[in-house]
Each structure stands twice: as structure tokens, then as C-alpha cells.
């Protein structure tokens, strides 16, 4: 028994080391924002070009504007509502209004232990008015944290 008692401090030291390692908090370093990434293309040139002015807000949202008369926006970011299966946006490009409606599925996704969970989406369908928007092409239906082009908006 004496040997066990004399060895016990060794167990404590190893356990303390393990505890110190396991309890060291780690930071969330991954991207956690899930948004549709949609570059704006000028229809006449087929090149990415920022409009002179861009305003965007969600239909029936109380959160205000996502962009408010913003300049130099080449890529529009649309956050989707994970508590609904569809949501709409009002977009104003150079003073002309259009409405974009999206239908989608949402599902939780573990980003990492440190960052926790976010909602990813799969776009089912898309409708829009054509006051200034000419075409919207869906390039990638899967909306994640990845920096990938989801839509191309031609105006």
C-alpha cells in the first residue's frame, strides 16, 4: 500500500496536465456567417460592376436595411430566414426597385466545436421582378459559409 500512496502524486500530476490541456479554451476561427453570395453583373458588358447605389432589405423584416444607398458593392449578400421556408428581399439598384423571392430548405450544421452550429440552406426556387434586374442565374444552390458564388445578378 505504501507504494500506491507514493505513486499517487504521479497520477495527480498527469491528471492535472491532462486537465490543463483539455480545459484550455479555443477560439472560433472559422467563418460562421451563412449568406447567399451574389455578384452584380452589368448586362451590357457581362462584367462584374458595382451600381452607383444599392439598397437591400428583407420583406416584412423589422431589422432594417441590409444595404442603404451603398456604393461600390460588387457582391450582394442575402441572409436567409432559417425559421421560414421562403423569404423575400426588396432590392433597389440605381433608384429602380425589384423584389426577389426565394424558396429553400434550412438545416443545422456544425461548424466546429468552438464556433457551434449555424443554419445552412438549399435553394429550391427563385422568382424576381424585372424592373432593373434582367436575369438571375443560380450557380450553386447550397448556401453555406464557403466563399462561393451562389447567384449571378445581371442588371
Amino acid at each position, binding site marked *: 500500500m505504501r507504494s500506491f500512496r507514493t505513486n499517487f502524486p504521479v497520477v495527480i500530476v498527469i491528471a492535472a496536465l491532462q486537465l490543463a490541456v483539455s480545459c484550455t479554451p479555443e477560439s472560433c476561427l472559422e467563418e460562421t456567417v451563412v449568406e447567399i453570395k451574389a455578384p452584380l453583373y452589368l448586362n451590357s458588358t457581362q462584367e462584374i460592376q458595382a451600381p452607383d447605389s444599392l439598397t437591400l432589405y428583407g420583406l416584412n423584416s423589422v431589422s432594417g436595411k441590409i444595404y442603404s444607398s451603398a456604393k461600390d458593392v460588387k457582391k450582394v449578400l442575402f441572409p436567409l430566414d*432559417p*425559421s421560414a421556408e421562403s423569404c423575400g428581399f426588396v432590392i433597389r439598384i440605381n433608384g429602380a426597385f425589384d423584389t426577389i423571392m426565394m424558396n429553400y430548405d434550412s438545416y443545422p450544421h456544425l461548424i466546429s466545436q468552438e464556433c457551434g452550429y449555424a443554419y445552412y440552406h438549399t435553394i429550391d426556387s427563385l422568382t424576381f421582378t424585372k424592373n432593373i434586374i434582367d436575369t438571375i442565374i443560380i450557380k450553386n444552390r447550397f448556401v453555406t459559409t464557403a466563399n462561393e458564388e451562389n447567384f449571378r445578378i445581371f442588371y
Partner: protein
Amino acid sequence: MRRISAYFISILILLFSGSSVANGQTEPPDSVLIPLKIRIGAEVTGPVIYLTDRANLSTEGFISADLNEIFALFLGTGYSDYRYSQYNYEYLSKGFFLKAGVDFNILRPEKAMGKYWAGIGLRYGLSSFTCEIPSFEYENYWGTIVTSIPPSKYFGHYLEASPGFKAEIFRNFSMGWSVNIRKLVYTGAGKDLRPIYFPGYGKGGESMSFGISYYLVWNIPFKKIKVEVKKEEPEETQESEIL
């Protein structure tokens, strides 16, 4: 105190002793009697950590049986109760794991003598557990959602290599440690809701995991075998080559 000193010093002596027998004064024996043993062990760091961190309990025990002076069959099992919380979610995981494999003793029989083990264990692990997210909060432009994900059952598979050392510190009672290097081979879950923690493996977000285990082992000798001692070839000296 003598025993604990002997325990650590024996690691160095056994690992670096090399050809001490060959260089000694006495002639090494032609054969040695090695007791084959059944070993029943418990990992102690998990319960000790639980005394300070009540959120996480990890217990592990094993039984192994010597096949000969080198190989032993290994069967281990354990239970884990893991809780984790962050600013935006909580996570619970409970389950068992089972490990099976072989242990290789790399010590020469005349050094090990059935009392010392230095080598590597190679194991296949199966982790069976349930996990749930009792609450998680997600916030974006449209507002804040607080929701939960109900319990789901998972099976994870992993491989483990465990180099280590064990020494008999008094009759039929050993202590030892091992460094555990694990490779997750199958998570049993999709890419969206992969488990954060696998019992017996560790963090599920990483394809490799590392750990240290410290064991208390009860040895039950069941048979003695005679093992021939391989004689080392005497090294030719430069002087003898000249002669």
C-alpha cells in the same frame, strides 16, 4: 520511495540497457522462464479529472492475456459522459466504447521477465453513444432562433496505436502509462451534424486525436514458458581485424 524510484529508473535502464548482459561479467543464461499473465487494468486519469471537472466522466478498463513473451490479446471497454457548453449551444454525449487488438512487447525476454512491458498496442475501437443538443441559438438579420436537436444514436470507428510502458511495482501489481494516437475512420454521421465527441476517441472534429493514459494493473499468472535467450554476436573490434 524505493519502488517509485525503481519504476522510473527502470524505464531508462530497460530502454537503454542494450547489450549490458553481453558486457557483464556473468554468462547470460541459455533460457529464461517467463510467466504468462492475464492482466486486468483500470485507467485512472479519467476518474481523477472527474473529481475536478464534474461535467466530464471517462472511465476505462481492460483485460489482456499473454499469448507468448511478445504478443498479448487486448480487450478494453469504457464509459463516457461528456457535456460541453458554449455561448450559443449546449452539447451532451453519453456512451460506451470497446477496443480490441494486440500488444507487442519489444523488451527482450531476459529483461522483461514478465514484469516489464515496453511496446506498442494496436487496437480497433468502436464507439456507441447518443448525443443531443438541448439548446442552440442562431442569430442573423431575420432575428434569433433558439432551438434544440433531439438525441440520436451513433456508432464511430477508430484505430489506435498506444506505445507505452508498464512495470510490476510489487507482486502481481503493475503501473504504467501509454500515449494514445487515434485515427477516426468512420463517424457514423453525416457531414452536417457530426458528433463533437466520441467516447474512447475524443474530439470528433479532428481526424486524429492524442492522449495519455495511466493504468493500474492486476496481473494473474497462469502459465510459465521457457524462452530461449538469443545470444548477441560479439562485435568485432578494429584491433581484432588488424590481428
